[in-house]
């Protein structure tokens, strides 16, 4: 499993050259937002902030799936875990996110059957191996994971699996960008657009948002050279006053994206309104199961309808996700809220900006 082409995108000479070019562009203070949590992590992991000119501020946006999950959805996961006869399956990050009263990690310690999976297909396997149990999967993710989820449901239907359901808290990226631009006080001079999501959606998915708000936007990959290149393009666009939507990740992203993945996604799911932590309800920013797949809908099967709840007092995750605050400006940061005792999800997820600040700076 030796991955090729890692070192090429971490080349120190190339990095130095890009930083020099960024420095040479004459620009005012710039606030650039990396929308995706994987970008946030990569920026910290490679120390990118420490080599950029001080005029450039990088903000972490609403692109960490765990971070944008509404409190009521976390509460729903906890409720599922508490049901008799349920095996709750989830990706690892979610397990420590505090709900209103508990977390999946705490429920697990109390005896709930909570299992971490690496793929939703593993959850279906668990269902097949445990026909007497109900297996619920916490579906938290963006365009990147929704097609796989859809494919899993199609295959579970074909195999006649009756004891597997999902609770969908899936979200879409472009509507969140638009909502962000409409929010009072938000000040962003350019978007570093997600790489993985764009592999599925294609560049065109951002066309509408770009044309409406005319904001410099660059799709890029996750290696340091990719990110530095995107920053250079954004800085140049700001300097010339000529915003553009650029695909700087052509080795993975096309104009129209992965058509097959999109077809499967739209076969199983349909658009719905969704609650985002800190931002609130965003119209048509979520995906729910279509009627013909209702048998796979955990909320319907268990009649689970959690009330909207307010987020923990003092937690600034919402403002941080919108670039209105940095983690260090949150009064709970490093005091009440640490990775050992997280209050908000941005401190839990490996892609959360608070966790990244805590770990790496």
């Amino acid at each position: 499993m030796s991955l090729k082409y890692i070192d090429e995108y971490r080349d120190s000479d190339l990095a130095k050259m890009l930083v020099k070019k960024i420095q040479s562009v004459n620009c005012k203070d710039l606030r650039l937002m990396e929308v995706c949590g994987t970008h946030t992590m990569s920026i910290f992991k490679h120390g990118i902030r420490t080599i950029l000119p001080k005029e450039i501020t990088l903000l972490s946006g609403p692109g960490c799936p765990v971070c944008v999950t509404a409190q009521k959805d976390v509460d729903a996961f906890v409720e599922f875990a508490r049901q008799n006869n349920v095996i709750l399956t989830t990706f690892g990050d979610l397990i420590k996110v505090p709900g209103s009263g508990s977390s999946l990690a705490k429920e697990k310690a109390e005896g709930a059957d909570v299992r971490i999976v690496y793929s939703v297909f593993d959850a279906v396997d668990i269902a097949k191996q445990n026909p007497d149990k109900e297996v619920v999967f916490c579906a938290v993710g963006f365009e990147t994971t929704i097609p796989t989820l859809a494919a899993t449901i199609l295959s579970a239907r074909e195999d006649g699996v009756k004891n597997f359901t999902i609770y969908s808290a899936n979200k879409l990226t472009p509507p969140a960008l638009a909502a962000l631009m409409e929010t009072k006080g938000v000040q962003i001079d350019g978007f570093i657009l997600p790489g993985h999501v764009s592999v599925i959606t294609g560049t065109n998915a951002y066309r509408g948002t770009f044309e409406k708000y005319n904001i410099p936007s660059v799709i890029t990959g996750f290696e340091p050279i990719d990110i530095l290149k995107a920053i250079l393009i954004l800085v140049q666009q700001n300097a010339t006053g000529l915003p553009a939507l650029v695909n700087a990740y052509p080795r993975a992203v096309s104009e129209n994206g992965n058509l097959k993945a999109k077809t499967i996604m739209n076969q199983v799911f349909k658009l719905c309104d969704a609650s985002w932590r800190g931002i609130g309800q965003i119209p048509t920013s979520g995906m729910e199961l279509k009627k013909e797949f209702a048998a796979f809908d955990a909320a319907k099967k268990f009649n689970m309808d959690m009330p909207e709840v307010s987020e923990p007092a003092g937690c600034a995750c919402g403002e941080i996700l919108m670039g209105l605050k940095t983690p260090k400006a949150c009064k709970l940061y490093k005091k009440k809220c640490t990775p050992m005792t997280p209050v908000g999800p941005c401190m839990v997820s490996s892609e959360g900006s608070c966790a990244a600040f805590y770990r790496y700076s």
Partner: protein
Amino acid sequence: MTNDKILLDHGSGGKISHSMFSELILPVFNNPELAKQDDGAILMLGEEKLAFSTDSYVVDPIFFPGGNIGDLAINGTINDIAMCGATPRFISVGLIIEEGLPLADFKTILETMAKAARKAGVKIVTGDTKVVPRGKADKIFINTSGIGVIAPGVNVSGSNARPGDKIIVSGTIADHGIAVLGTREGLKFDSDIKTDSAPLNKMVQSIIDSSCGIHVLRDPTRGGLGTTLNEIAIQSNVGINILESSLPIRGAVRGTCELLGFDPLYIANEGKLIAFVPEKDAQDVLEIIRQDEFGKDAVILGEVTNKDPGRVFLKTLIGGSRIVDMLTGEQLPRIC
């Protein structure tokens, strides 16, 4: 700690394990030997200076590429004693067995333990067995304790790092954790990632027998290299700088970490040590380690500074800098 129950995180070897030790365990058992927090206790019995250490093994699965829970349990305690600068001599073995464990597996594990002890030149001299009903343990858990002798004049401790020291790592990192994870999760590696479980006592003996100075020895097991460096930075009240470009990682291990989002700095090793040595002796110690059968890939990883005491910094490949914190949260449960 705000939790009222033990969570898996408490066993991670990272930050929460440390706070469990310092807030819950140390205050109850408090004594100067325990408070030193080295890999083993250093004790005076008459004229004799001894190192005494214990460790329990709950790895899942019990068989994995390159080894099993048996040699892991023997090598682990041998290494903990060796990291005190001691020559390991005697080992005890406690076996907690789940009803239903196949006898053939049990025999294989015992034979592996005997072989590991022979290879390292230690004797298993006492032990205990308990069997619990099915479901009350998972196949087999093993505790090993050991005693070693520290030669006069040897003074190795996590609190001895000094500014200017060079930091040597004896080989590639993260092999063990990824080998176990791969087996457990059924990941089909297209390569031969194996545990690095190995006895390091002969390597340590060679360093001690040389005329080189040696300040700290530690094996970066659970919690990984990142956590261990933090422990030493705190114990010695020094800063540590390491270079990403010097980190020895096998391509396949690195690829797996990239793919699964793990940081190899926090993945367990079971046959590696880090040595803090005065700069003037660094090259000599590096050569001694490279001569050992388990030290061929040894490199100098970084150095100790008097800036930012208690913190570890990594210079990244692209020339940036970042903090390496202790592991927070459980990256991989039941890895050893």
